[in-house]
């Protein structure tokens, strides 16, 4: 152990945690608990990781990765059968592994790979490690502390549930996302955009419409959703209507702000061409507003999903992500609830990612994209 000298504060902290963990031995207050081999392996892996910090970045990062995650794996696997019996060392060792993973991410973030391929890989790996640790800590704490399944199931159970319920999940995604969300998102964002243009074009509407647009801003879903079910029926159309209402305001506000964002000299330039309202709009003001408009599109990409799901808590056909969530809560199948949530999170991230890609392509000239 004396040969292991940490190089970062994470390394020091991890070493200290290991020492404290030894003081409070054992890991669980149940017999048989962890075997001597498993415990030794955890320590070995963690010490290896601490030592690896001194290696060249690329190798160090790989060893840190192996050490931290290997230790975490053994630790979490070992709690099987002993759920709810974890003692302090369990959490201390987990914390040590987490710190080392953090160190690993720090090293990875600092790497400036030359090949495009490696850069892309890094861009994926770093958030993946971060996410993995959310799951590891979640798994370890729910199982270590024995948190009731119906309050919060461990991710492993959720994963198993996802794997077993793919057809149901697919049907729900089809109903909620491909019908309500996409339609509502397009129409709602479009309506917010057009309203902003209308308000911009016609001063009468600017004065009259914007204050009223503000009132739409916070029409609470739970108030609106039942009304929409009344008006548009219980199928996806009413959910789309809720999404429209939810996505309208962010787009309105952002477009209005964006339309004010173009520079004075540029506007003067267009004036000298006696450029008409629409030409100035399309050639100058909308491109200048694009960063704002994309902000709205990004915010809406997640709002639309929340809106559609929550709207399904009211009246729906017996399919859809929101329907499933509210129904399975009642059946105490909380793992299914989280499976839907996980799918929603994945879909939302993809949705957001697509919007962000478009943003990069369209507003490539903006300092925030050029790397300000």
């Amino acid at each position, binding site marked *: 152990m004396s040969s292991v000298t940490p190089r970062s504060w994470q390394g020091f902290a991890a070493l200290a945690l290991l020492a404290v963990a030894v003081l409070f031995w054992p890991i669980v207050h149940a017999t048989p608990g962890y075997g001597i081999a498993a415990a030794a392996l955890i320590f070995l892996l963690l010490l290896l990781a601490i030592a690896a910090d001194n290696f060249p970045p690329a190798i160090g990062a790989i060893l840190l990765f192996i050490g931290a995650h290997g230790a975490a794996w053994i630790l979490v696997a070992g709690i099987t059968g002993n759920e709810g019996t974890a003692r302090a060392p369990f959490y201390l060792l987990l914390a040590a592994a987490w710190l080392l993973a953090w160190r690993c991410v720090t090293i990875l973030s600092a790497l400036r790979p030359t090949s495009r391929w490696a850069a892309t890989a890094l861009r994926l790996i770093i958030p993946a490690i971060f996410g993995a640790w959310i799951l590891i800590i979640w798994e370890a704490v729910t199982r270590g502390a024995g948190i009731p399944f119906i309050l919060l199931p461990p991710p492993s159970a959720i994963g198993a549930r996802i794997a077993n319920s793919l057809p149901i999940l697919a049907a729900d995604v089809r109903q909620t996302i491909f019908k309500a969300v996409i339609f509502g998102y397009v129409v709602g964002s479009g309506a917010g955009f057009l309203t902003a243009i209308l308000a911009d074009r016609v001063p009468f509407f600017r004065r009259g419409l914007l204050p009223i647009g503000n009132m739409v801003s916070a029409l609470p879903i739970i108030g609106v959703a039942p009304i929409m079910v009344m008006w548009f029926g219980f199928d996806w159309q009413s959910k789309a209507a809720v999404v429209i209402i939810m996505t309208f305001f962010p787009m309105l506000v952002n477009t209005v702000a964006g339309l004010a964002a173009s520079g004075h000299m*540029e506007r*003067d330039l267009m*004036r*000298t061409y*006696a450029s008409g309202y629409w030409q100035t709009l399309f050639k100058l003001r909308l491109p200048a507003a694009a960063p704002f408009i994309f902000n709205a599109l990004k915010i809406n990409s997640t709002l639309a999903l929340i809106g559609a799901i929550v709207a399904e808590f009211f009246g729906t056909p017996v399919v859809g992500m929101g329907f499933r969530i509210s129904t399975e809560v009642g059946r105490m199948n909380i793992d299914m609830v989280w499976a839907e949530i996980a799918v929603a999170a994945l879909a939302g991230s993809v949705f957001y990612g697509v919007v962000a890609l478009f943003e990069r392509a369209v507003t490539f000239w903006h300092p925030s994209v050029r790397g300000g």
Partner: protein
Amino acid sequence: MTGASPAVVSASKLGLTFSTNDGPVQALTDVDLTIGKGEFVSFIGPSGCGKTTLLRVIADLEKPTSGTISVNGMTPEQAREKRAYGYVFQAAALFPWRTIERNVALPLEVIGLSKAEQVERIKRTLDLVNLSGFEKKYPWQLSGGMQQRASIARALAFDADLLLMDEPFGALDEIVRDHLNKQLLELWERTNKTICFVTHSIPEAVYLSTRIVVMSPRPGRVSDVISSTLPKERPLHIRETPEFLAIAARVRDGLHAGHSYED
């Protein structure tokens, strides 16, 4: 030359006062000025004397607070709507999301030229300002002087009868400047455009102009108007003739009168 041709710009008792957080600023007072068709008028004067403001009033980008002004016999607004003039701003004002050629294409799109005509004009004006080869670059990939030249190309491509140019050659080296001066004179002679030209360079003003308007600051007034006696045909070496130097001296005196430095 002034009297005969119809007035393109005609201002009388023109005044403009900006109100700012910190009291009013008189940018122009009592400006009387008539510019005839086909004239090349330079405006020269110390920094902050109101040259830009005057050009902006002509261009209907600023409303005068007193006096009257007409452009082509109409209000500046009507003239602007008729696309009576092209304007080169003091700063380049290129759109960052457009490449250089697309920036030059901007006014052409606005007036609705055919694609072929656009391509032709872009090529011609970019050649003129020596930016061939940079068509596909974005503004931030160009040097300061190149950006300024792109903005000149954009105004020339617009091809209006009245050109308002606010220090177009400020950021250019002597040689490019001489080159562009010559090109501009050629263009002016060929097309009989009317040009209002702001500059800080006395030789440039004398070399180019049929008339030089000297302005003095705070409040911005026209302190002298000097008609050039130089022939319309002007080779570069005319700048060493005594006639040229005499006019330059008079401009310099006018400028000094308006300045407050003790030196």
